[in-house]
């Protein structure tokens, strides 16, 4: 774990360097598409007097290059074929660079797979000086007992979500407060080491430096949940091509995240099997005619499936839209039920507000919100990502919510565990800081 801890620190430094240079790329590696945006950060001194820019400070960056390419070699949000993935990333990055008319060296990536798993951690420490200092925060974070998440897994996110001093809870920033005991709650997200290493290797092969890595369920929550939803408790369901990510937000922190290894591609493959058509045709039929609620009208709407085999009977096949819906609906229901099971396991019903926001490419199926309301609860809405400056019209749909969220993540990353100080006790024996602490303690 120390390895990733160090490399996360290195990534954070890389991100700082990229922001100083004012240019960073975000890369969303999905199962159905790979999107790359090039962000240009404006200097901070252009802010208004009250410290905020327009759009609540989110206008400090501008999208100057955007490109999307069909994903190759990614399944279930994980890298499946390295060469193919590398080529797809290259395509997206090159097109975005061409639009931005500059090269980018730093990239922040997100992906949806690699079996994310959430852990809640708690730690507690005494306050020897009465007042909370940076070192105390570091110590309380270090005192969190890390669960045994097994070999082959690594920490992707480690957000301190809550601090408590004595019996007062809910501090965002405990520094300077006076008390006897400091407690912290931390949310830990672990992923499969192999999957993330593969992705990092693919990106490195494209001559790009990695300035950060994030879970796509988390960042699409950042983009598609509005502020009160994040505050009062909401779940963002990012229905992608190969995986459906789920993240629960409460008090503006992500407190839970999981993913279902089912997505829009499975619906397409069901259609492909059911209607005996190629995958591309199935995808097209799903996009144009798809739905989840059949009506009497749909019995009369005949869809030409077509084929190219030369057999007249086969090439002239038609199905009614009801049949198509009959194929799609069970799979969509299965996905939503899986999500429902995860939400139940996570204790989502304990939250004050139980808003559910559907986003991602597969959430564009007509009638999905009504189906989801029957399975997940009444508070369901379809989410679209926040608007950011310079984003092309083509990239404002719900399938880009994790891409846009990654922009926000690049601009305002939440403090993670590795952004805090290292407790002095953990430093090597000869470090200067340790000597400083000895001086402070003895004089």
């Amino acid at each position: 774990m120390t390895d990733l801890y160090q490399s996360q620190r290195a990534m954070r430094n890389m991100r700082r360097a990229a922001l100083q240079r004012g240019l960073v790329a975000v890369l969303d590696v999905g199962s159905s598409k790979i999107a790359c945006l090039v962000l240009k950060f404006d200097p901070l001194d252009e802010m208004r007097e009250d410290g905020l820019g327009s759009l609540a400070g989110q206008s400090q960056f501008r999208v100057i290059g955007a490109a999307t390419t069909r994903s190759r070699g990614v399944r279930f949000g994980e890298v499946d074929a390295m060469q193919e993935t590398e080529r797809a990333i290259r395509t997206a990055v090159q097109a975005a660079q061409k639009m931005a008319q500059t090269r980018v060296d730093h990239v922040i990536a997100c992906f949806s797979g690699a079996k994310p798993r959430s852990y809640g951690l708690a730690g507690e420490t005494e306050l020897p000086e009465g007042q909370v200092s940076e070192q105390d925060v570091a110590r309380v974070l270090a005192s969190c007992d890390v669960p045994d998440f097994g070999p082959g897994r690594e920490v992707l996110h480690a957000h301190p979500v809550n601090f408590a001093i004595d019996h007062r809870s809910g501090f965002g920033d405990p520094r300077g407060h006076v008390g006897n005991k400091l407690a912290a709650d931390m949310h830990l997200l672990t992923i499969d080491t192999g999957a993330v290493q593969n992705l990092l290797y693919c990106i490195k092969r494209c001559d790009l430096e990695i300035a950060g890595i994030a879970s796509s369920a988390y960042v699409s929550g950042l983009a598609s949940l509005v502020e009160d939803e994040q505050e009062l408790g909401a779940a963002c369901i990012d229905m992608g091509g190969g995986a459906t990510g789920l993240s629960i937000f409460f008090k503006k922190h992500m407190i839970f995240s999981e993913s279902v290894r089912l997505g829009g591609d499975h619906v397409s493959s069901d259609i492909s099997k059911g209607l005996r058509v190629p995958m591309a045709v199935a995808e097209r039929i799903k996009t144009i005619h798809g739905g989840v609620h059949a009506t009497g009208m749909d019995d009369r709407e005949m869809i030409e499936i077509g084929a190219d085999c030369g057999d007249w009977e086969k090439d002239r096949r038609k199905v009614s839209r009801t049949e198509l819906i009959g194929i799609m609906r069970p799979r969509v229901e299965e996905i939503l039920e899986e999500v429902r099971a995860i939400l139940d396991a996570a204790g989502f019903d304990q939250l004050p507000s139980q808003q559910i926001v559907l986003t991602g490419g597969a959430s564009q199926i007509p009638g999905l919100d009504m189906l989801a309301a029957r399975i997940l609860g009444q508070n369901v809405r379809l989410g679209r990502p926040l608007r950011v400056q310079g984003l092309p019209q083509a990239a404002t749909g719900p399938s880009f919510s994790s891409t846009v969220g990654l922009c926000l993540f690049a601009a305002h990353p939440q403090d993670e565990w590795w952004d805090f100080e290292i407790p002095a006790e953990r430093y090597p024996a000869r470090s200067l800081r340790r000597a400083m602490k000895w001086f402070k303690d003895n004089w």
Partner: protein
Amino acid sequence: MWPLGRANAGARARYREESRRERRDPAPSRLSYKMERLRLTPGFRLGLRVGLPFVLAFTGVTVWLSDADRRAAIVQSYEEMRTSVEERPEFMVAMMSVEGASDPVAAAIRSMMPVDLPVSSFRLDLPAMRAAIEQIDAVANADLVIRKGGVLEVRVTERQPAILWRSATGLEMLDTTGHRVATLIDRAARPDLPVIAGQGADDHVAEALTIFAATGPLGPRVRGLVWIGERRWDVVLDRGQRILLPEDAPVPALQRVIALDSAQDMMGRDLTVVDMRNTARPTVRLGAGASEFLTSQVTGVSAP
């Protein structure tokens, strides 16, 4: 469920448009990806846009100019162009007129002309010519103007001689500021000018002129002034008489002598020197005859 059908129509149109475009999406090769990135590097772009043309142009020009004949041809064509403009008739100066100068001075000015006429006005260095003309002692001031029609007009103000200065080298004419005007061979050529003598007398011409102006009734008898010891004047009269004037206020001292002379005809008597150097104690030196007579009067015995 009509609304669903409507909503689908938008998606359908979008999809059709996309599939009509049906752009191929080939992945760039590793090499082309790297080249593209290199091309997009800001420094590299700047180098291509500015540095490369500069280097190419510089190299080309350097190679072309490395041949001595080409360089000479360029210089020559430049010179030819310059000459052709300069020697247009509008710019040519054909003649020179000298105004306000006497003939010898005018001749001297003409002989000093550094270039032969006709010449282009671009080649004439009027300030230098003016300085050269003003080097002539007889010229107080010169103005050079190029008039229309190619005439170089030299307007000269000559120095007016005010005094003669006899020195070891000869007789010089000086103007009122003590500047030399010309050498005079013969004193008789300018009998109207007073004469001064003595080393450094030319620096005190103004004072000498005031003394001359103050001579009044003694004027016809004054032969000249002598600058003694570079500090004071002697007035030399005919019959070997001298008036020794003090350093300070020589004119009042001279006026006292003139007053004595007009009252008692002092200068008509037998004395050789009137010494006014100490104004509180004017002294006279008697001539030889008078001094003998006085001695005999005192002793009662005439000198042998």
